[in-house]
């Protein structure tokens, strides 16, 4: 089951440049929440702050309070523990090229010391089924490398890899921007099914995508969360002039 995310006064920096200013947001459990905004507005940084990936960049830091379910992300929990509870899918599909499809999905579990072969087989199959890839790859799971798949398949493989560790939250950082429309459609369909069991936060450049998959949408501009509301409200009757300008295509 997914859990909710509570963000209070989140600030983030790259060296001396501030990237996020006092973000407050409450992400509902088992819903998809979209994060939109023009390039460089901090939406990726925001998502990367949720699982502390932000701080892996040299000189990057973040302050504030992020609660994911019962977990206090910036207080008293190690980054590795956090990341085991939160799956992440990146913009560019990044399967491990030296591993087979099977090992790609099992990678997270193996890292965490999971050795039970029988259970591993089950989890790999279930994860690949969840990511709607099972039927396409089941015949050569251990024979082909993760890099031998098509772009869309690779991205679904990455989703399966993230799901295999059974996270409560799935973060997706523009998961479709490197994919063709058909693969994009498949992933969107997938998001629809996944949010029954996971909380999903998806960064997207594509406003139609946000309106298709997400119940809630946050609009970022220059490091600030301008508006956060039900997707329907954001796209039909935004309360901020800047949101309206953005979604009607005046800029960005």
């Amino acid at each position, binding site marked *: 089951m997914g859990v909710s995310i509570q963000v209070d006064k989140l600030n983030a920096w790259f060296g001396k440049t501030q990237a996020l200013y*006092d973000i407050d947001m409450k992400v509902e459990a088992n819903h998809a929440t979209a994060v939109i905004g023009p390039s460089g507005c901090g939406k990726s940084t925001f998502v990367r702050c949720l699982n502390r990936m932000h701080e892996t960049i040299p000189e990057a830091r973040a302050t504030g309070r992020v609660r994911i379910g019962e977990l206090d992300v910036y207080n008293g929990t190690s980054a*590795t523990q956090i*990341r085991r509870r939160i799956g992440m899918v990146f913009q560019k599909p990044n399967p*491990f*090229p030296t591993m087979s499809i099977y090992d790609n999905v099992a990678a997270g579990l193996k890292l965490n010391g999971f050795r039970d072969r029988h259970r591993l087989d089950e989890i790999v199959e279930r994860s690949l089924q969840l990511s709607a890839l099972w039927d396409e790859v089941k015949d050569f799971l251990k024979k082909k490398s993760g*890099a031998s798949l098509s772009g869309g398949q690779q991205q679904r493989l990455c989703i399966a890899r993230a799901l295999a560790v059974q996270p409560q939250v799935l973060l997706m950082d523009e998961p479709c921007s490197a994919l063709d429309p058909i693969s994009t459609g498949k992933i969107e369909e997938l998001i629809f099914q996944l949010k029954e069991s996971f909380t999903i936060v998806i960064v997207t450049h594509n406003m139609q995508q946000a309106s298709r998959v997400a119940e809630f949408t946050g609009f970022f501009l220059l490091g600030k969360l301008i508006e956060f509301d039900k997707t329907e409200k954001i796209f039909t009757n935004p309360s901020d002039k800047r949101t309206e300008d953005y979604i009607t295509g005046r*800029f960005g």
Partner: protein
Amino acid sequence: MGNYALGAPRLPGPQPVDKSKVTDISRAQTGPLIQSGSSRLADRAFYFAILACGLCVLALVGLIIFELVTKSSLSWHAFGWKFFFQSDWDPVNDQYGALPFVYGTIVSSILALVLAVPLAVGVAVFITEMSPRWLRVPLAFTTELLAAIPSVIYGLWAIFVLVPLLREYVEPWLARYFGWSGLFEGAPYGIGMLAAGIILAIMVVPIISSITREVMTAVPQQQREAVLALGATRWEMIRTGVLRNARAGIMGGVILGLGRALGETMAVTMVIGNRPEIARSLFAPGYTMASVIANEFSEATGDLYLSALVEVGLALFIVTILVNMAAQLLVWTVTRGTPARANG
């Protein structure tokens, strides 16, 4: 929130175009500005000059091979393949077998790799993944500097520092605790196969570590992030996300280092002991292909003696060329961004 004006110029996006500021391309000058008849001739001359440079290199390699083959034919006819499997090297009776040199070259090089690879990979990992930024450049520079030291200097250092150290402390200790393996027995002279292996290891570290560094930097950042996002610790990230992806390239670096170790002459000659014998113990003196050529070439009076030395040279040449080619190929597959694909 909202304490800035939504000034249109701050934001990118379609804006009305001011027609007066756009240069009309159709009216720009289109004719050639400079017309010159001599440029074609200069171009051709340049082409041939460059072509000659390129062919020169090919000709040089060809000539070297030709010389080695013709000069060694006498010894080849006298001994055939047996040359490489016989162990008497007896200039007085004109009996030549190169086995002790082949053995010495192989053993000293393998010893060097065993010692150098963990160190070199460790240095590369530290520099690319863990070192604080300010230390990165000096450290990389110093490692590279090791490669620039002339090998005779390494030889001198080995004779005055390394060999006494081995003789006084290291070899007695090894004999005491690992003597049972048979690799460390006999009198600890200091000079011998072990000293040669160690000095070679030091000389090979910069090669392996700089190539390892290069291929590790070529591993895309997304791979590191993918592993980290799964909840990996730093070490797990380096192992799974970096070393695993770079392994073909690292292998290439190791083989390139092997190529260097096989051909290294001066420093090895100074510490290996120069005795054409095959001994199990690493304390015993040995001889390598490169050092026998360097040592005996000036004294080689008989035709057959000279020819035998050239044949040793030819064998060394072929082996190092093959090793280098294999290494370049491996490094190339990795840095070109087409990681060797695992199919198993």
